[in-house]
Each structure stands twice: as C-alpha cells, then as structure tokens.
C-alpha cells in the first residue's frame, strides 16, 4: 500500500514525529499510558510474551497479567476491576474469540452505568485483532465489530494509520467508558510518522479525510483503506479524483464528515472487509439515504466481504475481500 498521502498529512501536524509501524504504535500507546497512569493494567492470554516483551520489563507482574483461557470471565474480571478503580486494557487477541465474551461486554460493560443510574463508571478498553488473507479459516478470521455497533453504551474504534491508532488508543485508555478496539492485522506492518508528544490524542468520533477528491466519496472501513487508497491512486492517472474518508471511530460515527463530502461529490461508495449484511456500510448508507438523499446523484454502492464464511484455501480467500480492482470497478460504475 501507498501510505504517502497519510504520511504527508501527519508530517504536516506540528511537533516532532518518529517513524514506526502501526503495531509499534499500539504498543507505545499502551506503554505511555501505563507510565502516565498507574491504574492502567493489561490483561490477556500470554500478554507478558505477546503484548510486546517491553511491558513486563517496565512494569512488572502487577501491571501485566496473563489470563487463563477463560474469555467469558476475564473480560468480566476487567469490568469489575474497572468499576473498582483500575483502568484495564483487556486483550482478547483474535477477534473471533470475542463471542465468548459477548455476555460480559454487552450485558455488563455496556449496560451497568445506565442501569445503576450513573453510580458507577467502567473505564475499560477491549482490544482484539482481525486476521485476513492468511488462511486463518473461519474460526479465526471474523470481523465482529458490526455486531457491537447495535449495542448502546459502547464506543468502537478501528483506525488505519500508525499516528491514528496511537492517538485513538490513548484516547480510548483515557476515556471513562468502555471502548472496543478492532485492529486489522493487515495494517500492523504499515509504517507512518507518529507524533512523539505523549499527549498526542485523537478524539473518539472524528473522521479523517485521508485524501481529498472531487468526483466520488469513498468511505473505507479499517483494513479496507489499503485497497481503497490503491484504487484512488490508480484512478488519478485517468483524471478521476476520489475523496477517501476514514471514519477511524466506528461508533459514534462521524456522519457529518461524510455528508460534507457527499455535498461535494454527490456519489458514495463504502468499502469494508466485514460481511455484507448489517455492517457499518449498511448503517452509513441508511443514514445517508435518509439525511443526504437530495445530495445523492447516484445509488450508494457497498463493497464488502460476501455473506459467506472466510474460507481457508488461498485460492478462495484471495478475492474474498474488496480489492483495488473491485473498488476501481465500483467507482467507474458511479461516474
């Protein structure tokens, strides 16, 4: 992927920057926040090893806890600890394991503040990573964020650049409410310039225009940013100028940024690696079909994974998710 545009934007932000990968930026966000606030603890299976060896070195065992394979309860343990004075980061590792923790996340974390009339706060972060195109097969390749979109009381982020994940992860850790972080593993190795300011925060709920354009608005969700940027770069040579919007936060979603863009382009495509039905793209399309209907010159298109489980075989998985070419095709269709 060409992350040039993005790098340019970040480089434009004042203050010193440093180059690092998306994955390094997550680890650094955690490290810095753990330094800053001793209430921040990290919980997860094998985290003392996988969470970046640095963590246990810096903070010792009282801040970094290896969990037994008990997703249904160690998430709840995190919630109880959050209610009682800690600010846990709970690492669920592969996103497909989050189904085991659904009850605690939905019935407890998302509801308890409301159900107690605000008597308690639940400052907690749930992290998990979404695999694809590596033959992980269906039980390790889900993108379950659409399920949690429907649940009131949760905030959901899924940023796509190193600078954004660092800034949003830090905001999530400092937030007073439950935040879910969905990391697309295809983004982990991507490098970008990241501000060194330890208070580099990106507000939850604000989209970013990753590239400005005139002819069509493409909203790219999470890992779909890569083929989307490729498609935009590819079409520039034909004189087609694509505006690419990265919501960064999926909930609450920055509808205003999308509306502003549609005002300019009158055309909307949403690209997403999640399964097709009731995904974030559905919601964006529905809101725009209600609130920006008169601005739309053409139908709203959605590209996504099909309503089929992720296959193991590379031959089947290869074109399972939207590709540069399928995005280029959709853009052409709208013009």
């Amino acid at each position, binding site marked *: 992927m060409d992350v040039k545009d993005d790098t340019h934007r970040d480089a434009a932000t004042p203050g010193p920057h440093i180059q690092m990968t998306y994955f390094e930026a997550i680890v650094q966000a955690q490290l810095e926040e753990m330094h800053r606030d001793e209430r921040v603890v990290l919980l997860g299976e094998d985290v003392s090893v996988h969470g970046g060896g640095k963590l246990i070195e810096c903070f010792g065992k009282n801040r970094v806890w290896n969990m037994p394979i008990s997703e249904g309860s160690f998430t*709840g*343990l995190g919630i109880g600890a959050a209610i009682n004075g800690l600010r846990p980061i709970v690492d669920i590792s592969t996103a497909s394991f989050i189904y085991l923790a659904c009850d605690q996340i939905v019935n407890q974390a998302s509801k*308890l503040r409301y159900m107690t009339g605000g008597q308690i706060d639940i400052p907690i972060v749930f992290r998990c990573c979404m695999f694809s195109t590596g033959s992980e097969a269906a039980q390790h390749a889900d993108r379950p964020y659409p399920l949690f979109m429907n649940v009131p009381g949760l905030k959901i982020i899924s940023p796509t650049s190193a600078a954004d994940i660092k800034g949003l992860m830090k905001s999530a850790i400092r937030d007073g409410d439950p935040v879910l972080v969905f990391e697309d593993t295809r983004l982990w190795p991507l490098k970008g310039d990241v501000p060194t300011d330890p208070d580099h925060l990106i507000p939850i709920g604000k989209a970013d225009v990753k590239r400005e354009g005139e002819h069509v608005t493409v909203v790219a969700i999470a890992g779909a940013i890569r083929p989307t940027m490729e498609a935009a770069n590819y079409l520039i040579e034909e004189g087609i100028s694509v505006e690419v919007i990265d919501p960064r936060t999926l909930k609450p979603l920055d509808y205003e940024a999308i509306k502003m863009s549609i005002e300019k382009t009158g055309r909307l495509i949403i690209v997403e690696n999640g399964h097709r039905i009731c995904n974030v793209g559905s919601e964006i399309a529905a809101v725009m079909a209600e609130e920006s209907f008169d601005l739309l010159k053409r139908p709203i298109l959605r590209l996504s994974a099909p309503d089929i489980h992720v296959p193991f075989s590379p031959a089947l998985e290869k074109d399972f998710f939207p590709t540069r070419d399928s995005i280029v095709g959709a853009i052409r269709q709208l013009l």
Partner: protein
Amino acid sequence: MQLKGDRRLEAFRRMLRIRRFEEEGRRLFNGGQIPGWFHTTVGQEGAIVGASLALRDDDAMTGTHRSHGHPIAKGAHLQALMAELMGKEGGVCKGRGGSMHFADSSVGIISESGIVGGGIPLATGCAFSAKVRGVDQVTLCFFGDGAVNQGTFHESLNMASLWRLPVIYLCENNGYAMTTSVATSHGQPDIALRAAGYGIPGEIVDGQDVSAVYQSAAYAVTRARAGQGPTLIVANTYRFDEHNIGLAVSGEPYRQVAEVEAHKRDRDPILLYRTVLLEEGVNEETLATIEHEVAQAVTQAVQFALASPMPRPETLPDYMFVSTIAR
C-alpha cells in the same frame, strides 16, 4: 468470631428490614404500583445478613436478580430502594434498574446482575483491583445454586484461587433455580465440593442461622484480608415465596406445599434468631422497639417513593456515558 452485643441486634434489625421491605413491596406490586418482575428473598435473610455483617463498610459486594436483600443487609437506606421499585427519579438507580438491579454504591455494591452468573466475574475483578492496588478491601459475591452451573462460576473461582484474590463466594442455596431443583441440574449436588477442584476451601453452613453464617463469613473475610485467598461458602436456605411473585407454574408442582409450609413454620431465620436473642437475655422490649423502628422506616420509604416524581422523558439518555477523560 461470633456475633456479639449490639451486632446481634443489628443482625436482627437488618433481617427484619429486608422482610418488611419486601412484604410491603409485594403488596404494592400486587396492587399494581410496582412494575416489572418481583423476586423476594423472604426466607433467605439469614444467609444474606449473616454474610454481609462480616464486611467492613468499605468492602464491596455483588448480587443477583433476587437483589433486594443485599443492599439492605449491607446497611442501605430504604427510601431510594423503594423509589427504585416504582421506577421513580428518586430511585437508587434513577429508575433505570428496578427490582432486579438494586446496586447501591453508597454501601459498596458494584452490581446486581439480572443475568444469572453474570456478577461472579465482576466480584472477582473487584477483588482483583483491591489486590493490584494493594488495599485490604474484601469483596463478597452472592449467587444462587442455579448460577453454579454457569461457566463464569468455574472460570472465576479458578482465577481467584490462582491469584489468591480477596473474595468470598457466597452461594444462597435455596434448593431451586426457578422450578429446577439442585438434584435435577447438578451432576453432583454438594456444591461446596466443587471448591476442591480449584484448590480453595469450600464449606456448607446453615443459612437459616444468621450467626452461623456470620461466623463462617467472618472467618473467610479474615483469610481473604490476610492475603490467603478466596473461600466458597454454601449457605443452605429456602425461598418462601414463588420464584417471582405472580408466577403461575403449570403442571406437577416442583416442590410440595408441605415442604414450603414446614420451612415457613420451622426454619424462618428471623423467628429462629428472635428466639435465640431472647434466650441470650435480650429483652422483648428491645426487640419490639426494633420492630417498631423497622416498620416506621418502611412506611417512610413508601412515602418517599410515592412522593418522588417519575423521571422526565427528556432524561432518557442520561447516565449512558460518563464522557469524561482521565486526568
């Protein structure tokens, strides 16, 4: 560790406060003044109060759908609880929670879970926080015999044992989960025996004997506070009312009327303790005074609740988010 002196009277008072509160609530519920579902703890006050009295004020607690007794046992005021039953603005949860969710944080209750077994990990995490922060707070976790079959029970006890967390797991074993008896849902009916699998002490106590429960819990609290880890206590008790008030169970009865009547007659924790106190030399007037005070407190609670306004529609979204950023 025995209940002594005035603490004995306090035990009596709190059991009675639960009983009278619920009797009044049941009356109001049947009269249509309380919406939703109504589960009473009538018959189970000994287990609840005995365990709660073993805590310090700054200790924490979690409970269940059968939630009325827990905050009262921990010393809560009755007004905001009664108002909550009616869904009023003055309710302890501002009308967002209701009968099954009497989490009163003023007495250290972090949640009452309407999801059976859902509070067990929360209690474990609450204790985990105390350990990480190095404070000597203890958490008391209430749940029913039915909840024991949830995965969270197993997973939580394992973690509590592994890290020697300061938590007491207190099973209010009233013999039934709705219409399902322990014998027809537990492969092995001695719930206390499950503790050994996790390497923690498990014991059975007579839940109708408030001082026996206190003793057991107080010992477990001492161990927990000293860093010696969790304990599972199974308090055998009995639910005098139907699972929830108004529930009509069709078909063959799952428990015999005679069984229920015998418990009400011979195994009422409040009557039993009243007799003990008299035998121990407490005089009748002292008890009568308490009874009078409790009746008054309940009356006042009802007055408060009735006078409290309903939440205004525009406040619907309030309390969803704290929306502040840590400093």
